């Protein structure tokens, strides 16, 4: 193996990791920088090689190598920035626009005045990618970015798809011998990208085993998926395919929880809580679902239920009755209307009758009597003197 000849600084982080693992060296934390790996690499691996050969030369070489490695460790980080500057300035408008688009920035037209602005933005984006090397949360992401930085920038703005695939596979191969649960979920996180199903199932079986030890059941579900909670890993290979909706992962310290965005219910795996799908295991603990069902209130007055007047008004009044009452309150009462009508009718009839000169009119004597009465009233005081009562003789004394 030409390990001895290769400069560790030139190896990718994943390669360093694999070599360290191969030499049974404990890996440092995921967030450590590459030089840590390089240091370990040199310490253990080169030390081993040195043990086989003569010591002095190898020590010198090791030292030099270490120094060289350290030195070279610095420059690759500076190089991308210098390279970036050159690249950005050297890009044509179209290329600048394309690279901005690649980084997710939908730039407007690049003109003389706007070019400087967009160049600065692109630089910022590129520089922000670099420091994310050691500090990103997810292990897979950290690996991904660091690798791409070392591989991608120096090659220019090549497509990352190839490096993507290789780096994802590297993640899988490296992280599958898990030391803690963090790596297991991160391995499953890398499931998001299209990876081979065999390694996929392997990671899932790993997870299932660990889950079973703790008595939990992994919870990804989707329509038509089958669970292998207690049954084992048999079904898993069919369950999780890359084209399934992406799984989001929440990783509390020791446990991992799976969420599916399309699921109708969320499941959180906490310590001491077993989560089981009711479909398969109806007798088990009910799942915390988002669905709540409340008992329906009985319909008042229906099906023999007594109508209890909950409201202060005695009879429930519909809007129509209320309107009618309002209208009725304003109008004249009906009987009054009828009386008025009759009175007016009589008057009109009398007037009509007066106008008519009809001797056979039955009411004519009445009318005559009325007119006589009227006349007699006028001559009353005078007329009293005229009709002398024969019985009453004027007494001449």
């Amino acid at each position, binding site marked *: 193996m030409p390990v001895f000849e290769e400069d560790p600084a030139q190896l990718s982080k994943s390669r360093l990791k694999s070599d360290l693992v191969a030499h049974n060296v404990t890996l440092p934390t995921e967030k450590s920088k590459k030089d840590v790996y390089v240091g370990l690499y040199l310490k253990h691996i080169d030390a081993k090689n040195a043990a086989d050969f003569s010591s002095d030369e190898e020590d010198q070489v090791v030292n030099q190598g270490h120094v060289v490695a350290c030195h070279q460790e610095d420059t690759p980080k500076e190089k991308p920035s210098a390279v970036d500057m050159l690249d950005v300035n050297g890009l044509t408008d179209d290329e600048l626009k394309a690279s901005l688009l690649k980084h997710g920035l939908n*730039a407007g037209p690049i003109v003389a005045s706007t070019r400087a602005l967009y160049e600065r933005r692109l630089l910022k984006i590129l520089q922000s990618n670099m420091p994310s090397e050691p500090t990103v949360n997810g292990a897979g992401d950290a690996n991904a970015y660091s690798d791409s930085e070392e591989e991608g920038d120096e090659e220019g703005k090549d497509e990352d798809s190839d490096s993507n695939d290789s780096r994802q596979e590297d993640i899988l191969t490296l992280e599958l011998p898990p030391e803690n649960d963090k790596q297991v979920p991160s391995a499953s996180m890398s499931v998001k990208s299209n990876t081979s199903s065999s390694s996929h199932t392997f990671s899932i079986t790993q997870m299932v085993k660990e889950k079973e030890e703790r008595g939990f059941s992994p919870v990804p579900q989707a329509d038509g998926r089958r669970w292998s909670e207690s049954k084992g890993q048999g079904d898993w290979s069919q369950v999780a395919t890359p084209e399934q909706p992406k799984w989001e992962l929440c990783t509390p310290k020791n446990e991992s929880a799976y969420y599916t965005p399309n699921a109708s219910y969320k499941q959180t795996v906490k310590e001491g809580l077993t989560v089981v799908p009711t479909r398969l295991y109806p007798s088990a603990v009910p799942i915390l679902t988002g669905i709540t069902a409340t008992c329906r209130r009985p319909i008042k007055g229906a099906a023999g239920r007594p109508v209890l007047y909950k409201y202060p008004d005695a009879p429930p009044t519909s809007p129509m009755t209320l309107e009618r009452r309002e209208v009725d309150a304003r109008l004249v009462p009906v009987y009054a209307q009828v009386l008025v009508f009759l009175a007016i009718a009589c008057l009109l009839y009398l007037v009509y009758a007066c106008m008519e000169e009809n001797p056979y009119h039955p009411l004519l004597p009445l009318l005559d009597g009325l007119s006589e009465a009227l006349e007699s009233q006028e001559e009353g005081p005078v007329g009293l003197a005229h009709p002398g009562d024969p019985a009453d003789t004027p007494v001449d004394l």
Partner: protein
Amino acid sequence: MSSTTQKHRDFVSEPMAKKKVTALAGIGDALGKRLEDKGFDKADKVLGHFLMLGKDEGRFKCWLKDTCGANSRQQDHCYRCLREWCDSFL
């Protein structure tokens, strides 16, 4: 004074709102596509650039030629269209 095209009259008669680049006089489908590729997907962006060039005829026509390959007639139409719009609305 040369007669104006219908397109010119349509453009100049109202605020350009969200009109596409192809609404500009002199800019047809092919030129419009090229402008859109460069990022000038709306007429107001071309207007912005026109204003930035100081409404200068020579500069604008030169820019238009470089950007989308417009010939002199198309450049002229576009320039006059924008100029008149600015006179009316700015």
